[in-house]
Structure formats: structure tokens, C-alpha cells
């Protein structure tokens, strides 16, 4: 049985990050975009935690908590905005959201 | 008070301008004239208190701004900047006094006072950052003057003016930062003080690069061929007062900066680039004079003639000897007075007829004899007739450059021929012949307000042509110290031989005298 090392975590983190990135690029639904963002953040969290463990330094894990807190508040605010948007326009399609056109 | 006279000169108009906003519209003109007159009186006091025999900086002021990076508020004047400051104060005064009925007079006067602050600031600053700040700030009032009171193409002209000069000065800023960095590397301390930089001897390769960076900024401002095309637009669209300030003072920033920065900081590079720049300047002199001849709009004629004269100033500057540089500084003043005067004169006729096209005139000498006389005097001064202010400058500039190159001086001298051609042709078109257009028949001659502005200019143009000594002497003293500095700093053989050694000369003449005895 192979031992789970730092590289495995980092590979997992990279895979998750790629999935998140593709999600960010491909999804047209705002809600799914949030999901994708969460995946991105969590991939980073995994990397933080793993590296923190590897070096025996707790700063990385603290940072991961910090990221979680930020993600939570972001989701809270983001979901609030999303609901307001949905109430007004009754859809949350990204293509409809283009009032910031340059 | 005399210790802080330069700060007062810079900030008094600015403060007065802020108060200008709360002045009644009816009395704003009086207010503006009063402020500008006080400012002018202060600048005269500066001259009075100035020690004309000293060559270094006087009335130095020093205050720390960002000491960690050696950015300080340092001011000072020498013979070179003193008279340009006086000229700036003088032109603001007569500019406001002769202001004709423009809309939003209040804004105009406030803008002019702000402009004055930036102009005096540029010429008094001895710290590169302070210099740069004023240099850039001066664009803003000018942009506003052209953009708000200009002709039909004013937006295009003002944006072109702003972006063009701004681009140049950004390159200059990079040069300034590099210069400070080199200073830091050499001495371990940061400094943006120009006088500190003077002591730094850079390797020739660095000099070349920095020279080019500074050159781009200055050349666009001057404006040198081929960077000159913003100027005809700016002049063509600007209101009279805008053109006057632009031609009389703002253009001088470029040529002044050459003498303040390029020559003493980079003597070897100056010698290296002397001939290319002289050739550019000669092209500028002849080419723009020819273009001026083709113009149909009298204001454009004078605009292009400005460029042509700036070419002679550049030639004088890059003569790199006392005669040439003194001549070029003197010509800056001369051209300021003459071009400023000519633009005012164009304004006179524009106010009456609302056109600047020469074919709309003809025979004006019959109708407006006084106007024709003053225009004639100014034209002759512009052509560089002896005993007018421009001759002294042109003569000395060309005389100086003759030491460096015979053939190039001969070519630059063609400027005096082509200069006569376009000016006389324009004068003939406007003033001679019969009156052909009915509208012109009843034009009133120059009135009192216009005479207030024009008569002093005529007097100065002749006075300084006949007796330039009070101005030329301080200039010459300061220029001598710059030339000596350049000679001492020069490293290459060629630079050593091209830049005269004044200290050595005195020794030699003394020795030869002893021999003679």
C-alpha cells in the first residue's frame, strides 16, 4: 500500500482547482458559478492544509480557516444578491447579466 | 520677506486665484490686473535684489518633502531663469489687462493666475520632482484655456496638445527617476536636487541614454521638428491670450530645460548629439519658415514663425559656448516679447473682424495706421533687425555656433532670409494695397486698452535691442558658470575641445600679457 504523501494532496488540489476553473469558465448559471468558486477555494484549502502539515507550521491551516470564513461571508452576500437579482429578473443566467458592457 | 520671495512669487497668484472665485463678476478684471501687477512688481523686486555679478543660484529656499527619497522643495534663481520669471509675470499682467470681452471672464482670469503659478514654479524649481510637478501642472490651465475658449476645433487641438506634451514628459520622468537612481548608486543617498546632480559625473553610455530621455520631453515642448505639429493646432484654436502665453512663456520651458538639465548633466552626450540636434534645428528653421510662407491664416504664420525662431534658440544652446548660450537665453526673452506681441496684434484684428485669413484684409495701413506701425515694428523685430531685441539673440546664437561649425551656421543663417520672406509677404498681404473689402473700411484703430498692452512691448523690444546689457550681463555670468561646469565634467576628448575652458583662458591671457610686458 502506497503511503499518502504531500504530492497526492497537491495533485488532488490541482485536479479540484482545474475542475473549479473549468466550472468558472463553462457554467452559465450564477448558482453553479458559486459552486465552482467554492471548489476553487477548497482546492486551495486542501493545499494549504497539506503543506502546513508537511512543514509542521500551523500558519497554513489558520489561513485555510480564514479562507473558509471569507468564502462563507462571500457566499452569504453573493447569495443575497443572487436572490434579489432573481426576484427582479426571474432568471440567473449569466448572459443576461451584461449591464457592465464596455 | 526677500528670503521667501520665490515661494511668494509662485503661490501668491495661486492663492489669489482661489480668492478670485469669490470676487464679484464686475470687479474680477480689476482684481486680476491688481494681482498680476503686484506679482510683476514682486518680480521686479527680485531683479532689484538680485546680485548681477554672482553666477550661482540666489534666493535659495529649502524645505523637506520626502527626505527618505531626497525629494525636497528647493527653489532658486540665477541669471538664466530670473528674466524668464519676470517675463512670465509681465505677460500675465498685460495679458489680463488687455483681455477683451470673453465669456466667463472670471474663469479665464482664475485660470491665468493658476497658469502663472505653474510657470514661475517651473523656472524657479531646483528639484527635479518639483520641476516635474510644475511642468505637468502647467498643461492643465493651458488645456482648459484652449478647450474652453478656443475655436471650432478646440477639443481636438487641446487634447492633441495635452497628450503630445504629456507623453514627452513621461519619458522625461523616467529619465529623472533613472538619474536619481544613478545618483543613489554613486553616492548612497537619494537626491533629486539639480545642484547635487550637477556634481555627478556619469559614464558616457549612461549619459547618452538619459540625454535621449530628457531630449524627448524637452523637444516636444520646444517644439522641435518633427514633434512640432501640435503647436499650429494649439495656436490656431487657442484664444489670443492662450497663444500669447503659450508662445511667450510655455515654449521657453523646453529650451530652458535644455540649459538647466541636458547641458550641465550630460556634457559628453551634448557634444555627441550636437550635430544631429543642430541639423534637426536647421531643418526646423528653414522648413517651418517655408511652411509659414504658405499659410493663409496670419495666426498660423506667426505660429510657424515661432517654431522657426525656437530653432535658432536650439542652435544657440548647442553652440556650447558662452556667446551661443547667452544668445539663446536672450533670444528666449526676445522671442517671448516679439511673438507674444504679434499674437496680441493678431488678436486686435480678430476682435474686429472675427477672421484671421489674410485674404480678408489688405490695405489696412490706410485704415489703421497706428496698428500698422506697431505691427510693422514687431514684424521687424521678428525678422531680427539690429537694434531690436531679437537681433541680439539671433546674432549671438549664430555667432556662438559658428565656432562649432561653419557650414551649419551658414545653413541656419538662411533662417534670416526665409524669415524675412514670410513676414514681409504676410505684412504686404494684410497692410498694403488698396482696401478691397467693404467691411474693413470702418475698422477702428487700436484703442487704449490694446495700447496699454502693446506699447510696453514695443518699448521693451527696442530698449533691449539698443541696450541689452542689464539683461545680458547676468545671463552671461550664469552661463559662464554652466559652461565651465560642463568643461570640467566633460570626459571625452572631443567634449573637452568643443566646450571652452573659461578658467584656462583667463590664465592664458594673463600669461600672454606678462609675456608681452
Amino acid at each position, binding site marked *: 500500500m502506497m503511503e499518502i504523501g504531500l504530492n497526492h494532496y497537491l495533485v488532488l488540489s490541482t485536479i479540484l482547482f482545474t475542475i473549479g476553473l473549468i466550472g468558472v469558465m463553462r457554467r452559465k448559471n450564477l448558482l453553479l458559478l458559486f459552486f465552482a468558486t467554492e471548489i476553487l477555494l477548497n482546492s486551495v484549502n486542501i493545499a494549504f492544509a497539506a503543506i502546513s502539515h508537511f512543514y509542521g507550521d500551523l500558519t497554513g491551516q489558520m489561513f485555510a480557516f480564514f479562507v473558509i470564513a471569507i468564502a462563507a461571508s462571500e457566499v452569504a452576500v453573493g447569495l443575497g444578491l443572487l436572490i434579489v437579482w432573481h426576484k427582479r429578473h426571474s432568471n440567473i443566467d449569466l448572459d443576461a447579466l451584461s449591464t457592465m458592457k464596455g | 520677506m526677500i528670503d521667501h520671495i520665490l515661494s511668494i512669487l509662485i503661490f501668491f497668484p495661486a492663492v489669489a486665484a482661489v480668492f478670485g472665485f469669490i470676487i464679484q463678476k464686475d470687479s474680477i478684471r480689476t482684481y486680476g490686473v491688481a494681482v498680476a501687477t503686484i506679482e510683476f512688481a514682486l518680480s521686479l523686486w527680485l531683479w532689484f535684489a538680485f546680485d548681477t555679478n554672482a553666477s550661482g543660484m540666489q534666493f535659495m529656499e529649502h524645505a523637506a518633502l520626502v527626505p527618505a527619497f531626497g525629494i525636497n522643495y528647493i527653489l532658486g534663481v540665477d541669471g538664466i531663469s530670473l528674466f524668464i520669471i519676470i517675463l512670465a509675470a509681465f505677460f500675465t499682467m498685460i495679458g489680463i489687462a488687455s483681455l477683451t470681452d470673453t465669456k466667463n471672464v472670471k474663469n479665464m482670469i482664475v485660470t491665468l493666475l493658476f497658469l502663472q503659478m505653474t510657470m514661475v514654479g517651473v523656472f524657479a524649481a531646483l528639484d527635479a520632482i518639483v520641476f516635474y510637478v510644475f511642468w505637468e501642472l502647467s498643461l492643465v490651465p493651458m488645456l482648459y484655456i484652449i478647450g474652453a475658449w478656443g475655436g471650432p476645433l478646440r477639443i481636438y487641438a487641446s487634447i*492633441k496638445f495635452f497628450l503630445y506634451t504629456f507623453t514627452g514628459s513621461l519619458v522625461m520622468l523616467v529619465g529623472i527617476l533613472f538619474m536619481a537612481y544613478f545618483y543613489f548608486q554613486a553616492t548612497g543617498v537619494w537626491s533629486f536636487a539639480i545642484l547635487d546632480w550637477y556634481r555627478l559625473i556619469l559614464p558616457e553610455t549612461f549619459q547618452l541614454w538619459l540625454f535621449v530621455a530628457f531630449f524627448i520631453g524637452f523637444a516636444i515642448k520646444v517644439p522641435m521638428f518633427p514633434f512640432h505639429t501640435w503647436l499650429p493646432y494649439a495656436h490656431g484654436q487657442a484664444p489670443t491670450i492662450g497663444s500669447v502665453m503659450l508662445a511667450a512663456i510655455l515654449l521657453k520651458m523646453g529650451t530652458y530645460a535644455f540649459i538647466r538639465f541636458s547641458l550641465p548633466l550630460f556634457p559628453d552626450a551634448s557634444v555627441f548629439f550636437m550635430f544631429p540636434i543642430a541639423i534637426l534645428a536647421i531643418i526646423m528653421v528653414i522648413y517651418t519658415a517655408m511652411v509659414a510662407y504658405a499659410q493663409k491664416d496670419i495666426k498660423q504664420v506667426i505660429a510657424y514663425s515661432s517654431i522657426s525662431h525656437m530653432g535658432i534658440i536650439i542652435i544657440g544652446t548647442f553652440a556650447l559656448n*558662452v556667446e551661443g548660450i*547667452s544668445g539663446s537665453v536672450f533670444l528666449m526673452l526676445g522671442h517671448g516679447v516679439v511673438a507674444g506681441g504679434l499674437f496680441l496684434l493678431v488678436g486686435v484684428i480678430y476682435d474686429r473682424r472675427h477672421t484671421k485669413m489674410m485674404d480678408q484684409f489688405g490695405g489696412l495701413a490706410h485704415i489703421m495706421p497706428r496698428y500698422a*506701425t506697431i505691427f510693422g515694428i514687431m514684424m521687424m523685430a521678428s525678422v531680427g533687425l539690429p537694434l531690436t531685441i531679437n537681433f541680439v539673440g539671433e546674432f549671438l546664437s549664430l555667432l556662438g555656433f559658428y565656432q562649432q561649425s561653419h557650414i551649419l551656421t551658414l545653413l541656419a543663417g538662411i533662417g*534670416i532670409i526665409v524669415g524675412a520672406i514670410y513676414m514681409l509677404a504676410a505684412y504686404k498681404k494684410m497692410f498694403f494695397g488698396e482696401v478691397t473689402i467693404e467691411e474693413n473700411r470702418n475698422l477702428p484703430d487700436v484703442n487704449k486698452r490694446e495700447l496699454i498692452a502693446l506699447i510696453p512691448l514695443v518699448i521693451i523690444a527696442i530698449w533691449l535691442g539698443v541696450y*541689452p546689457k542689464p539683461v545680458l550681463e547676468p545671463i552671461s555670468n550664469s552661463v559662464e558658470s554652466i559652461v565651465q561646469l560642463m568643461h570640467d565634467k566633460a570626459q571625452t576628448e572631443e567634449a573637452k575641445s568643443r566646450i571652452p575652458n573659461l578658467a584656462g*583662458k583667463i590664465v592664458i591671457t594673463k600669461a600672454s600679457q606678462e609675456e608681452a610686458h
Partner: protein
Amino acid sequence: MEKYLYIALFAPLVGSMFAALFGARPKTVIAGLVPSTLLLISLIASSVLLVHIIGGGEVIHVEMMTWMATGDLYIPFGFVVDQISVTMMMVVTIVSTVVHFYAIGYMDHDKGFNRFFAWLSAFVFSMLILVMSDNYAGLFIGWEGVGLCSWGLIGFWYHKESATWAANEAFIMNRIADLGMLIGIFLIYWNTGTLQYEEAFAAMPGLDNATLTWMGIFLFIGAMGKSAQFPLHTWLADAMEGPTPVSALIHAATMVTAGVYLVIRSNELYSLIPNVGLFIASLGAFVAIFAASMALVNRDIKRVIAYSTLSQLGYMFAAAGLGAYWVALFHLMAHAFFKALLFLGAGNVMHAMDSELDPFKMGGLGKVMKASMIMMTLASIALAGLFPLAGFFSKDVILEAAFAEHHFIIYTVLLLTAGLTAFYSFRIIALIFHGEERYKLFGFHPHEAYKFMLVAMSPLLILAIIAGSFRTTFFSVVEEILSATEYHIHSHVTYWVMTIGTQLFVILAIAYAYKKYMSRDIKVPDGTSKMENSFKYKLLINQYYIPYFYEEYLVKSYRELSTVLWKQVDMKIVDASVDGIAGIIYGTGEKTRNMQSGNLSTMLKWMVAGTVAMLSLAVVFGLAVRYSDEIKTILSGLGV
């Protein structure tokens, strides 16, 4: 004595300013009288100085104040009254005083009366500065000053297109020459370190020949412009557009001789470079005959006199170039008197004929204008060089000098010119004053000029007659500073043969002119006669097509080139490239604004693309740094 110097110099300036005060007002007699009187005072002061100098007095040298001083350059307003300048001062003040008083009558009905006197006196002031200055820069002040006044006076009737055109032409042509002069001044300064005559001349023998030659050439280019030498001669004939007193004063007696004065003043330079001197003499001789030939056929009395002036200037340069400076100066003086007289006489004729200038339309005027006729005839005799009038003494010496120096070609040319001079001078005399009264056909009512105008002219008449007798005095005075050689033909026989031969030749030419042009069947030419259609006539009447050439090929091409430079180069190349650069930046913005579609999804895609690009750049640079040594070896292996 200094006091007199200042009076002589500044009285005309005061007069000019006084008249200028009345400049824009209608005619005020006092604006003419005061400058004239002040000139008289100047004349008296000059005479005092002349007596002082003749009496062997010291040369007067004053330094009024500093003009320009910077670096090693020091130029004062310094004035010197020596033998040369006092001669010039006398010429200038005498002729200008006469002309001033004459002009009070001549300009009687002109509405620019006051302005005229302001310009005229200003001219005299500039001319005095020119001749009295003790340095080249001061000379240049006067040099340009007379140019300016000449511009103002040629274009005095500024409503006339031809007058203003001629004024500008004169100014610009002179400017071309002035550039040469300026370069000459620069050369002198950088080689001798000063512009003062004395010091500069003292330093000159130590300089190498090439430098001196260049100095001589450039200064002479300046002289060529003022004195209208070929190829800068066309302005002089056109300058006749100005009022006649102006032509008499400026374009005959004084300003145009400034070039000769310059060469005489710089005699110490020119005697060091005889080659340039020979060139000057040859050019002078050429201009003498060249101008005389154009005078033969011209149908404008003022232009004929102008060409004769040109021709006489050629004589002066021939003399000066051969080293006979005092002869040149003497001829300059004598010429000033009789030529001014001739012009003023022509002015009387013009006045009588309502400004008609074609002598073919006159004829028989001698009956109504006896005094004018006598004066003009005597002036013409003086011009032709008949004994015992002024021209004989001055012109004959030039011929003698050319002969004695063994320049026989120049001698022959000048001799031939003497004949031509006599012929064309008497051609117009005969056409104007003798023969049938053709003017009646054109309905003119000629009348003699005012009495006081004639009286005003009389000093010139007297001088034109007696100036020759000054020769010995003159010689003894100027020999102190000019390399004075009495030119003696060694054998007496040759001398007498030459002199009498020349006289006979001239008399024959005069007689031929009278015979040809006094006859009763002279008609106003209408362009049909055989002579008028001959090539020679066309060539001469069109001034060898030189003005045509200048206009067609120089002026026009300059104008067209200017337009091309403006419309094509400045607007379409220089400015367009600036706008082009701005356009590219604008265009990039225009193109890339679509990226900013506002669609979150697209923007995110761009963001990712940017991140990837930057990351890959970072990786590439990182690798490059790590393997820099290997890369260098590979590159050097490739020979980069």
C-alpha cells in the same frame, strides 16, 4: 570735437522722430521743415569735422556705450571720424539736405508727407551709423537700418502693388547678401577675437591666407547686395517705384554705395588678398558694361538712371578691387553729387509730366523747363566724364588705374562703358528736352518745378561742376589711411593720347545720341518696328531675362515648394504620423473593448487566459534564469 560728432549723428534721428510724431496726420509743413533744418545742422557739424580732419586734426574716436558684451565678445557703440568716414558723412549730409529741402516741394501734394520725412531722416541716421561706426557690428546696424528705410521708402506708396513688391524684393535680396556679411563678421570675430576695425585689421596679417580669403569673399557678398552687384542687381531697377527724392538719395548717392564703402573700409583686409580684389574688379567691370547695356534701350527715365548708377557702382568696385581705394572713394563722392542731381532733375520732369516716365512721350520739354534741362544736361556731362566736370576727374583716374595696373581687359571694358554711358545719358536728354513736342499728343501740360526746388538743387549742380578740383586736397587727406598711389602712366604721350582719346570717344557717343534721338521723326515706339523685334533689343529690354528667370524659377518654385511642404509634408506626413500613432492606440482600444462584453462568463475566461499567460511567462523566465549558462553557450555556438 566729440560734440560735433554727436550732433552730426543724432540730429537726423531727432528729425525723424519729430516727423514721426505727425506720422498719421495729414500734411504738416513743419514735419518737413524741422527734419530738413536738423539735417542742415548735421551738415554744418560734419563740415566742422571735415575742416578739423583736413587741418590735420586727430582722428576722433568715441565710445558711447556698450552694446553687446558676453563671453569674450565686446561690442560697443563706437564711432570714428577719420578721413574715410568724414568724406562719407559729407556726401551723405550734403545730398540728404538737398533732397530733404527738395522733397518739401516734391511731396507737396502727397498725403504721406509727414511719414515720408520720418522715413527719410531715419534713413540718414542709419546711413551715418553705417559710415561712422568703428566696428563691424555697428556697421551692420546701419547696414540693416538703411535696408529697412529703403524698404519703407520704396514701398512708400503702399497702395501700389508694384511698389510693395519692389520693396519686399529689395529687402529680401539685401537679406541674402546680409547673411554673407554676417558670416564674414563671424569669421572675423572667431579669428581675430574682436570686431573693432583697428584691432581686427591689426590681427589680420597674422592669419592664414585661406581664412582671409573667406573673410573677404563673405564681406563682399554683403557688399554685393547693398550695391546691387550681379546677380543681386535686379532690385535696384525695381526700387525706382519709390518717390524720386528717395531714388536720388538712397538708390543713387548713398545707400547703394555702402558696399563700396565696406570694401574701402576693409582695405587692409583686401590688400592682403589681391585675388579677391581682382575678382571684385572683374565683377565691377562686368556690371559696369552689363548695366550700361540695359540702359541703352530702356524706356523709363528713372530706370535708365538706375542702370547708370549700377554701372557707375561697377566702376567704383573696379577701382576698389584693383587697390585704388581712394579713387573709388573719390568717384563715389563725385558720383553722388551728379547722380543725385540727375535724379532730382528727372523728378522735375516727372512732376511736370504727371508721373509719366517714358521719354518717348516727352520731347521738346526744354522750352518749358529750361532750368531743369540745364541741370540735367550738366549732370549728364559730368556722368559722361567730360572735362572739366566732376566725372572727368574721378572716372579718368579709374581708367588710368586699370591701365597702370596692366589690367587691360578691365580697362577696355570700362572704356567701352564710358562710351555707352555717354550715349544713353544723352539719349534720354535728347528725348526729353529736344526734338518734337510729342507730349502734346498725350495731353500733358508740363510746367517748371517750384523755384525753391531748383534752388535746393543748386548746391549739387555746383558740386557736380567743381568736385573735380578737390582731387588734390582729397588725395592728400585720405592718403594717410588709404594705400594711396597716384596712378601715373609713365609716358606722357600715352597719357595724353589716352585722355584725349577717351574724351573724343565720349563726345562722339554724345553726338551720335543727339543725332539719333533729336530727329523730328522719332515716334513713340509701338512694338512694330524692326529694331524692337530684334533679339538684341528683346534681350536688353527684358534685362537679359534675369528678372523673368528669378520670378519663374526661384520665386515660383519657392512658393510651390512651400505649399507642398505645408500641405503634403507637414499635414500629410509629419502630422499624419503623429495622428497615426494616436490612431493606433485608439484603434486598439476600439478593437479590444469587445472583450469587456459585460458578460461575467467571458470576462472570467479572459481572466483565466491572462493568468495562464502570466504563469507561463513566469515559468519561462524562471527556466531561462536557471539555465542561463547553457543558453549562452548554445547562443554563442550559433554565432549570435
